[in-house]
């Protein structure tokens, strides 16, 4: 019997955060202006999940990591040129719309279907990882629905740490209100973990890893089936970016106490 885990990471792509993100309406619903042309990155939350998955896989011999990603194939390919150099994984690609304006329900159904279709996947060793939310839509709903569809009922959200005890049980730290963590124990796989940031840095690019991954990444992209997602029947009443508030004053030589007093006054609205 294998002791390794089969870790499936769900991760989408989002526009590079340095780009100008300007929501615009078009007949099919809202989009980000020029979204297709803007450079994209792996969703940062999902990226943390991927690094954690690779770390766990490395520490647990016999493990394997898949990355299941739904996005426009050509954009996914560009993102893979960086992501594939980070950690070893096998890609499962779905060719469809990505972004904040697709229906979570449809996305979850497609991701769950893709996971079920992975040949030889052993449910008893299955860990479904992903971001507890995404940078394009902070709803935190997708991963839960993926878990439900796969009948994986042990679910954890806002995970910052997964520790494995000698008996194979998991100790999981989830973020809760007030900057604190909730500690849970779980008997073992299968489980769904929606990651917050975890604690691992972004791995440096490694060309050898990249070349190895590419052997499966490129065929997976060629194979990627068109996946219909959207928001049919949904009407968006209003779309806007979170407003940015920035009041800058340049003041020289202000004593620290004075700065602190100002900040407190600002927070308390005094």
């Amino acid at each position, binding site marked *: 019997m294998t002791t390794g885990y089969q870790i499936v990471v769900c991760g989408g792509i989002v526009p*590079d955060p*340095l*780009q*100008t993100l*300007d929501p615009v309406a078009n007949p099919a619903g809202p989009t980000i*202006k*020029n979204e*297709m*042309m*803007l*450079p994209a990155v792996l969703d940062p939350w999902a990226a943390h999940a991927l690094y954690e998955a690779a770390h766990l896989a490395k520490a647990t011999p016999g493990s394997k990591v898949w990355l299941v990603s739904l996005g*426009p*194939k*050509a*954009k996914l*390919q*560009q993102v893979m*040129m*960086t992501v*594939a*150099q980070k950690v070893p994984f096998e890609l499962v690609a779905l060719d469809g719309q990505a972004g904040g304006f697709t229906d979570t329900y449809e996305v979850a159904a497609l991701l769950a279907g893709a996971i079920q279709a992975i040949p030889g996947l052993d449910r008893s060793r299955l860990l479904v990882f992903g971001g507890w939310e995404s940078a394009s839509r902070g709803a935190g709903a997708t991963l839960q629905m993926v878990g439900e569809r796969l009948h994986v009922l042990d679910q954890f959200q806002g995970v910052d740490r997964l520790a494995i005890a000698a008996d194979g049980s998991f100790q999981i730290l989830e973020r809760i209100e007030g900057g604190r963590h909730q500690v849970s124990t779980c008997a073992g796989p299968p489980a769904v973990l929606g990651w917050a940031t975890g604690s691992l840095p972004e791995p*440096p*690019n*490694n*060309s*050898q890893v*990249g*070349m190895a991954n*590419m052997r499966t*990444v*490129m065929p997976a992209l060629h194979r990627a089936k068109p996946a219909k997602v959207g928001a049919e029947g949904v009407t968006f009443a209003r779309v806007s970016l979170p407003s940015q508030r920035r009041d800058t004053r340049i003041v020289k030589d202000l004593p620290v106490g004075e700065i602190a007093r100002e900040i407190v006054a600002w927070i308390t609205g005094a």
Partner: protein
Amino acid sequence: MEILRTLPGDDVRQILWRFADRYDLQMLVQSARSVARGPVARLVAEGARNSHAWTDQKASLLKAFDESGITGLFMDPEQGGFIEGPKNLALALVAFELSWVDGGAATSSLAGNLALAPIHERGTPEQRDTYMRRAMPPQPDEDRQIWRGAFALTEPLPYVGVETGLLSGRVRIAEWVEGKEPLLQVEKRGRFITNMGFANFVTAAVDSGDERIKGSCMVILEETDPGMFDRGAATRKLVHQLSSTGDPVFSLRVRASRIIGGYTVKDGVLVPRYSHGEIIEAVFRRTRVTVGLMTSAKLLSAVEPVIRYQRGRFRGGETITPGSPRYELGLQQKEDVLQRLIDVWATGEAGASLGFAAARLFDELDPLERAKDEIFARQGIGGGSAQMKALRRLQKDALEFLALSAKPAGERDAALEADPLVRFLLLDSLANVLCPACKLWNTGYGATVMREAVSLMGGYGITEDCPGFLGHKWMDAQLEATYEGPEAVQRRQLSLTMVNELFLEQFRMWIGEMREIAWRRPGTGACTLATAMEVWRWTLAHLQRATDADGAKLYHGTRQGVTFPLADALCWLLASRQQILDVLELEAKGPDNPVVAEGLAGLISFLTDLCHVQSARAAGEVGRICAELVHGYNRHPTWDGEGCGTSCGLGELDPLASFVPGVAGPAGGALEGSGHVRPHPPKAGPCVRFDGLEEFVRLRLRLDGCLTGARLAKDRAAAQLTTVMIPEALDYPQ
């Protein structure tokens, strides 16, 4: 009208520069970019460029290069590398990415390859195996130190610089026991040697100082060899400060097996297989392309920061309200700043197109060159002049191949088409022109245009705080124009290679190609370019025949005043042509990629306008240079000389009178200051006649006419700069 929506992204560049199907290269680009815009940019922002010394902080970059695959890139898979086959394009892309942020970082990485290049190109299998493996960063399971190298050719004054034959470095026989490998004593002083602060080995050019050694060679010196391995003082350079440069002194004893490429013994004399000249020729013809691309990267990197500066210039002012043109457009309300940025952008595109085309050409040429060497070896034809002779014999076949290549497939000569030697000759004749052209034009003219970019940032441009480090980049470009052979070296090489019949025949065919493109896509400026190419070709042929006023030959090696400007003119044409070809490639392949397809129409129309702007500029340069050369060596006729009767008449001058008072004044007046009474009607001066004048004038006139629309293209392109979407912030620190 379709508009330029965003700055061209990776997907677009991959098609333009033809690596859309090379994911190994696409990954490499991302890797190099993360090093450039991460650790490299942070170092520059922290002020690491402010010292000459090689510091730990700077050394940390070498580790970043190792970890990201940049160091190992040069190696073949069997040596631990990860890219199969020729790597010219790969190395070019890395240099481009690194110098997008800092040229010194690029130099640091490239100098290691330069040190290995003599071994890679001409080393014995054992030398290649040993040093390439040592220079490969260790894998996690390996317990060894990486070796880094330096390339030492240049010597303290008055020795090697542009003149690479003036070697003072010497190699002598220290000990030669019958039947054993000789021991050599090597004396070499270097000047401006990159990587010297940390190199573990050096590939050094030396001449024989012993009658038992024939000619010059290159030798490998190691830091632990017996004798002196003095790294010397750090060069107080003003540029590329993230690289290490110094003036080393070596006095070392090494085995003769360190001679690069090996040696034979003939009548008691040690004969190196390759002279230092042969080795550096093989090395530089590849590495110089990469240097050319470094400057082009700088120009293209300037576009985004300049647009951001221009747009935001007046924001925050009390009376400047959001929504007002001053707030939204800032300096972009002014036509000049937009048009100058178009010049910067167009030059960057043209240079990049030329450089990447040259790099790809070498990727194609490398295997053919090996095939050629194998064929010659089988035929018992050695290196050097024997090969040259054999190749000259094949020149006719290659010309015949070219003549047939225009015919339909069935009528061509299949044997010629498949002959690797013929293909080698053709590509080689192009490489011999494209490489120096790219190094010369991209860096030399690029440095001039980089100054424009700096100007567009105002005072900010020449401070360390300038976003995109543009001031640094301007200065750095000057080094790129100097090291690995300054402009004079490239011009000298071009003046020989551009008159090769094989090149000229291909160039002639390119004129037809441009005419055909002009017919399909007149907006590209291909028409202008085709005419400018004709002017250049005509001028070259004319100068090869004509003599100056004193009867001296014009096109001659010693007449750099003739050959060098003509070489410059050619570069403009080559860059512009490749820029047009790349845009056509994008137009053809772009629709297949959904990411590129979106917004493609606007992008193509913008890039087409850039081509037109650039080709008009190229045509202007070519016209100016050619006119000066064609006319400038004829002595101006005097009134009593032969030209007198053919001078322009008063009628031609009259219209000028309204602009230049007195120019059509009373006949027979005194020649100013001469004291003579004028025997002629007053005019500007006697005019010139020479053989071929009519043809030249006809071409020149046509060239002027071909500029039609170029300024409209510039206006259109400039307008796009006011609306194109740019990121919120630069993706590297400042």
